[in-house]
């Protein structure tokens, strides 16, 4: 119930391509779904987040798509750049629920 599944484990994309990372959850009490970006040796930093009252949220090149009925959400990075190379974690939380992180996706964007 508390687990958040994430795939793929690693992803290699050419510069300018689209990076897509998927997550799924079970706990219907979750109502906040952030994506965190982590560079080596640094703490995770919030990239973008969504609540289940919308199906999509876009901020620049980053888009979250949310499917409430399927209990799935995904991160799309358009026009991927080498500077986007990092580990991405999806997460979920809700009222009375601590943040639960997915296992992470290591993204490499080739120049």
């Amino acid at each position, binding site marked *: 119930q508390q687990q958040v599944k994430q795939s793929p484990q690693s992803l290699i994309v050419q510069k300018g391509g689209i990076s897509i990372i998927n997550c799924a959850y079970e706990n219907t009490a979750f109502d906040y779904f952030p994506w965190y970006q982590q560079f080596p040796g640094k*703490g995770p930093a*919030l990239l973008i987040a969504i609540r289940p009252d919308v199906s999509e949220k876009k901020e620049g090149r980053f888009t979250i798509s949310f499917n409430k009925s399927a209990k799935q959400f995904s991160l799309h990075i358009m026009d991927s750049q080498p500077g986007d190379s990092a580990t991405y*974690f999806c997460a979920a939380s809700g009222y009375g629920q*601590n*943040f*639960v992180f*997915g*296992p992470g996706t290591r993204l490499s964007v080739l120049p």
Partner: protein
Amino acid sequence: EPEVTQTPSHQVTQMGQEVILRCVPISNHLYFYWYRQILGQKVEFLVSFYNNEISEKSEIFDDQFSVERPDGSNFTLKIRSTKLEDSAMYFCASTPTGRGELFFGEGSRLTVL
């Protein structure tokens, strides 16, 4: 921009020694957390803290771990008798309301020899 600060950035200790990791959460935040990340692996929840007491802890947070807010600004994680498998990056995080964005510190790398 306010940030969560952690010290030390890296600590090397001998197995069996006690370690204290320190955190200064963002000043108006009320909920505090410790997470652990073993190299290259997922971010694992250890403990959450609100209103001067533990609100939730994971199965990782056994009797060798303790947390304290000794004053109005610091939030500490103590590991009483370190084991080799405690080697990891420890992240402190805080949030104003217990919901919404979780703000992480830069982490403290613990190496147990």
